[in-house]
Structure formats: structure tokens, C-alpha cells
């Protein structure tokens, strides 16, 4: 039977193991991160990751609105992930939908596990993630941007959260899927890692993998997160241009 008007499914993997954009299976898309582009927010970051463009802003700790959400023993984290109407090919209907609510929730929970919320009882830490352009992996890019923005805002946390998606493309496990791979691949699994403790604070999966593939994917994702983590640290250092500061090892003496 014919293709019934559907676009042709692109060939996702060449015989040499190259992907649709020429990357190897364990290769990330190009990333650039800028810390502190917004002056009104307490902290902010802009991340370009492949064709994703994501801005994150952090406010707080500040008074809780609405007040009934206030917790007496700790701060609450309120995160809003939002995609711009112009972020995708077809205009996205603006506003919160079920998908963005879900993503907001899982990102909030990822940060609740690292931010020291007990230090700021009865307050709110508000995170706004705006996806300006989307090309698969926006929740990971959003998480990375939000994590940088939290650090930029000086909010105490155990570690930065690094995030990347892994998936199964053309029968192989691949790092950091782009849109075509996400749409036509066999599986997509966003991960978020706290590198210092090695804990995963976000794991979701769509599609199918065998147990062995899952294990391979987790390994590859962890490796990818650590690579992202190093980029994040460099982005934070770049903001303060601290090339002259002594590395920690020297001071340990």
C-alpha cells in the first residue's frame, strides 16, 4: 500500500554508523550556553543546542504566590516550561497544554532533589523556561538552561543538573536525538543527572528498548550528561571571566 500522503521516512543511519546530520552515535549536537543574558531576572541563561533555542529565567527566593502553596518548612519550586507559538513548523497553539504541564512537573521535581529548599522556608523559587525554537530534546535543553539560571541566581544547590536524551535510531542506541530521529526512531529517553552523586533525577521513555539496550542507553546518557556538565561549568566560569582564578587543586595544599 502507498504512503498515503505521509512524508517519506528518512534514512536515519548509514552503513558507516553516521546519523542523518552526519554525527556518530555518541556525538552531541553543537551547544552554546550564555549565563546571565537577562538583567531583570535574579538569574538567567540562554542555551542553543542544535536547532533548539531555550531561555530560562529564575526569580527568588521570593514571596509565594498564590499564598496557599506556601510551605512552612521549605521553599517551593515553581517551574513553567512553555513553548513559543513560533517554536515549531506548524504554529503551536499558545499556552499551557498537557505536555508542557507534564514537563514543568518533571523539571520541578528534578530541581527539588538538588536545591536546598529548607534554607528558605515560606518562599518560592520560580523558574521560567521559554522554548523559542524546538528541535527535539527541549526539556533537556530547558533543564540545562534552568540549572545555569539557578546557579546564576545564587540559589544554593547540591550540584548542577545536566541533562541529555538518548534513544534508539535505526536499531542502534544514539545520543542526543534530533527531530527526525525522535519522530521516526524507535525510542527516546530524556535523562537528567546529578553528576557529583551520580543520581538520575529525571528519566522518561517513549518507545521500546530491550533490557540490554536500556542499560547501554543509560550508560551513554550518563556519559553525555557529564559532557554537558563540563560545558555548563565552563559557561558559568565564562560569565565571570575568571581565567586568572587558581584551580581548586592548588588551594588544597
Amino acid at each position, binding site marked *: 500500500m502507498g504512503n498515503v500522503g505521509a512524508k517519506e521516512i528518512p534514512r536515519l543511519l548509514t552503513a558507516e554508523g553516521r546519523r542523518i546530520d552526519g554525527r556518530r552515535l555518541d556525538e552531541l549536537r553543537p551547544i552554546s550556553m550564555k549565563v546571565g543574558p537577562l*538583567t531583570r531576572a*535574579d*538569574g538567567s541563561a540562554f542555551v542553543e543546542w542544535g536547532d533548539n533555542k531555550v531561555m530560562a529565567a529564575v526569580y*527568588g*527566593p*521570593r*514571596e509565594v504566590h498564590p499564598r496557599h502553596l506556601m510551605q*512552612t518548612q521549605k*521553599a517551593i519550586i515553581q517551574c513553567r516550561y512553555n513553548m513559543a507559538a513560533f517554536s515549531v513548523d506548524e504554529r503551536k497553539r499558545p499556552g499551557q497544554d498537557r505536555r508542557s504541564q507534564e514537563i514543568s512537573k518533571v523539571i520541578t521535581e528534578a530541581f527539588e532533589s538538588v536545591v*536546598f529548599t529548607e534554607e*528558605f*522556608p*515560606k*518562599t518560592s523559587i520560580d523558574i521560567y523556561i521559554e522554548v523559542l525554537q524546538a528541535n527535539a530534546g527541549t526539556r533537556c535543553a530547558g533543564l540545562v538552561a534552568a540549572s545555569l539560571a539557578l*546557579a*546564576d*541566581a*545564587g*540559589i*544554593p*544547590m*547540591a*550540584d*548542577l543538573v545536566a541533562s541529555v536524551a538518548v534513544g534508539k535510531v535505526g536499531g542502534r542506541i544514539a545520543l542526543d536525538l534530533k527531530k527526525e530521529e525522535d519522530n521516526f526512531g524507535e525510542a527516546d529517553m530524556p535523562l537528567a543527572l*546529578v*553528576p*557529583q552523586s551520580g543520581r538520575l533525577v529525571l528519566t522518561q521513555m517513549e518507545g521500546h528498548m530491550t533490557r540490554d539496550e536500556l542499560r547501554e542507553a543509560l550508560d551513554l546518557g550518563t556519559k553525555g550528561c557529564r559532557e554537558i556538565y563540563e560545558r555548563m*561549568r565552563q559557561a*558559568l*566560569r565564562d560569565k*565571570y571571566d*575568571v581565567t586568572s*582564578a*587558581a*584551580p*581548586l587543586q*592548588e*588551594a*588544597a595544599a
Partner: protein
Amino acid sequence: MGNGHGPRHRGRDRGERPPRSEPKVLVLPGDEIPHRGLQPGFGTYRVGKRVFASVMGYVTWREPFVRIVPFAGRYVPKPHDVIVGIVQDVQKTFYLLDIDASRWAPLHTSGTPWEPGPGELDQYLRIGDAVLVAVENLDATGKIGVTMKGEDLGKLTGGTILTISPAKIPRVIGKGGSMIHTITHLTGTRVAVGQNGRIWVEGTPGGIQRVRDVLRIIEEEGQRPGLTERIEGYLQMTGPTDETGPQAPGDPSADRTEPHRTNEPPPLSFPEQGGGSSRIQIPEQETDEGEEPWET
């Protein structure tokens, strides 16, 4: 203090700190810090016997704490800090002040010079008014009690409020008040510096604009030495304040507007020596109550 430094370094605005004997060590959240047997202090946390950073900043090891001097973060109140608050709400027996900390701070009538009956509080302060208050007590729940009783505390009328990162306030004040004295002296303004990063300024529109410019410079290069001298040079070079103000003429009724930042940053490089203009306006009381109590 100051030992080993020649007179050239007299104006280094290091506050009361001893000269640094070791290079600055930058840490990011999650970095392990060698604690050298000290207790974990601000910006750190402990896992077993190891100490990690929880915020970005420079590490200091000073008995009894290893702590981080953060690059960013909201104002963290300390008892006796003098701060600038803005009335956000008027309740039956207290005002709620926005002090740019993580919480609003209640100012009870007992902490004011007035004795309003219940519901009469808005006769003295209304929403949007600015006040100079001192942090009185902090309780375990994070509540910040403030008082208006104390020398020079009270309602701030007229003037403008400018903001700067609270971390830069020691630079604004300078060693023994050298920086703030230079600024007020050369711009003909009166200022009240709040530890929460809000700075109340009263003077001509031009004078206020120049204070604003200076604060931008301090914010951007406050970590470099010799700042007081360079600010002095900058202010002398840009000349005395005229009535209309050099850059922002249309700002005469700027009563307590939130800081309105100019888009063009001020020039960041100045000659070694200022122009040394003799036409500097000196306020009538150059060391009046406008600065003294807030300098240390």
C-alpha cells in the same frame, strides 16, 4: 590591615579584611572544597567528612568556617544591618516591607516613632513609601523583624532609589567610607546606603545620574583594585553637576522610581589622573547624617 602595602594602595576598598595571602579560588555548585578542618559555613554543605560548595563564588578559609563569598543571590539579612525597604502592605498593626530579601519584613508600630491606633497606619506610611530601617531580629522560621528606631532611621522622602548587587555594597562604601564620601562629595548628593543593595540618593537630577553611572562602574569592575581613585578620577573628569544633568535631563520628578537603567554603559576606562576640575560642587554639610551611620 594594610601592612606591606605602600600608600598607593591606601584606597583599596577591602573593608576590614586582611590582605589576601592566597589566590582566589573559584567554586561552582557541587565542587568539593578542601575544608582544612574548618566547619562548613555559608554556601557550603557537608556529606560525611567532605565539604562541597552549594553556590558559585570564591572560597575563604577563616576560623572557624570555610565559606563561599557568593557572586549572586538575594540579600541575606544580618542583625543591625541598615536597609532600605519599600512599603508593600499596610496591616492593622504593622507594615510589610519589600527589602529585596527572600521574604517581606514586617515593621511593627512598636518599631516606629508613631503611635497610630488600629487602622490608622496609613496616615504615616502608605504603599510605595520608602523607609530606612534596621534589621532587629531574625527567627528560625526566616521571619525578618525590622525597626525604625535608631539614629537616622525613618521615612525617606524625595530622592531616588538606585540598586546594586548587595555583594557590592562594601565597595560602594569603601574602606572607612572612602568611596561613598568621594561619591557624595563630587556629585553634590546625599545618600543612604542600605545593605540590601538599595541606595537612596537625593540631589540634582544630574548628580543622581552621575551616582547611577558610578554604581554601574562599581558593579561591573568592583573587584579590581584602586577603584576609589578611579571613581574619583571619573567624577572629576566628567565635571561638576549642572542643573539639568549631563545625561538624563528629563528626570526631575523621579521620586523613588525603581532604578531606571540607562542603556549605554558609562565609559569604563579613565585616565590615570582625573581632570581635577575646581568647579566641584560641595554640599553644605559634606559629612552630614547622609552617610555616617551606614558606613560600617
